[in-house]
């Protein structure tokens, strides 16, 4: 039985999460009022998650970073008219998802086995190597990672985005629905289909 978080840690986590969300809105409102230092703080907080989300969508770090810069550029451009009608991260990831889906739709993402065979193929990917693992363990881990990346990459774009937000950004269904501009039940359908596909494709890794 996988260990579930205790009630206390969940409540503490929720309080921290709510405080962080309010802080994001507060920072963005200050950016709206001309405080560029707050923009730098928002960038510091969300740079990593946005870049990694885009990297997992397009499988090329250089492209992901360029798209991520486009995201923050759009946030900065829109600062004068910013209104906190949704969570800041919902808005941020809506922009990121929109750019990623456009990029994929335009067919610029590199498809085929070549780009997934080695890290060099996806453009400057910089992962922290695990120094404690043996060579064999690293090879097995790398092979497993390639399978995961391939399985995710083959998902339809919207299913991929939903899975990445659900798994790696730990977003609730309602927030994913806000990002994808669809209903919560549509998000659940997307996720169920996506995870069903992943269960089939990754079953052999067990």
């Amino acid at each position, binding site marked *: 039985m996988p260990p579930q978080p205790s009630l206390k840690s969940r409540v503490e986590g929720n309080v921290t999460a709510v405080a962080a969300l309010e802080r994001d809105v507060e920072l963005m409102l200050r950016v709206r009022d001309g405080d560029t230092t707050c923009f*730098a703080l928002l960038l510091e907080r969300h*740079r*990593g998650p946005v870049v990694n989300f885009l990297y997992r969508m397009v499988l090329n770090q250089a492209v992901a970073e360029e798209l991520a810069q486009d995201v923050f550029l759009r946030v900065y451009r829109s600062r004068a008219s910013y209104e906190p009608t949704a969570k800041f991260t919902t808005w941020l990831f809506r922009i990121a998802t929109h750019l990623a889906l456009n990029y994929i739709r335009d067919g610029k993402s590199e498809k085929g086995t070549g780009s997934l065979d080695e890290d060099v193929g996806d453009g400057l990917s910089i992962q922290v190597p695990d120094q404690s693992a043996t060579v064999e363990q690293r090879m097995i881990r790398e092979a497993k990672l390639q399978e*995961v990346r391939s399985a995710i990459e083959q998902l339809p774009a919207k299913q991929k985005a939903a899975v990445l937000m659900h798994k*790696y950004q730990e977003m609730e269904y309602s927030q994913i629905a806000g990002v994808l501009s669809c209903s919560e*039940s549509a998000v659940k359908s997307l996720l169920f289909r996506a995870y069903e596909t*992943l*269960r089939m494709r990754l079953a052999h890794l067990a």
Partner: protein
Amino acid sequence: MDCPLHAKDTAEILLDYAGRRLNPEMAQLLERHMDQCEACHAFASAQRQVWDALDAWEPLEVSAGFDKNLFARIEREQSGGLLTRWWRRTVETLSLSWRPALPIGAAVLVVITGLLWNPHPLTEISKAGRHVENLDIEQVESTLADLEVLKQLNSGGADPAGF
């Protein structure tokens, strides 16, 4: 507990359980159910494996120059290209000397509105009460020349935006 797999609205608790996002009370209820429901047990197990596999994809480190490149792009955009700078100067010129420019601007606006709304400007009488029977191209040219004069008058002034 009803079987979560039989209802779409409750099936996601199996995903939440596999992702360790279920509250302890609900997790216990679900585990009691899974002791008797092979389908839910198999679903949760398989989903747990997918979750563990996805955990292998660790986040990347963002390039060191990311922020620097972003701020450089923002600065380039704010300073703008030639056309953007000209437009900004024109707007600033008009805003700095808006009093004399106002009636001139209004005249230009009336002429443009007349052209857009009426394909036969020679026969239309303007709503402002001025009777314009013939489009006087010289009047338009004169107005544009006035704008140019205003621009020249202010060309040596301080730029509030610092450009």
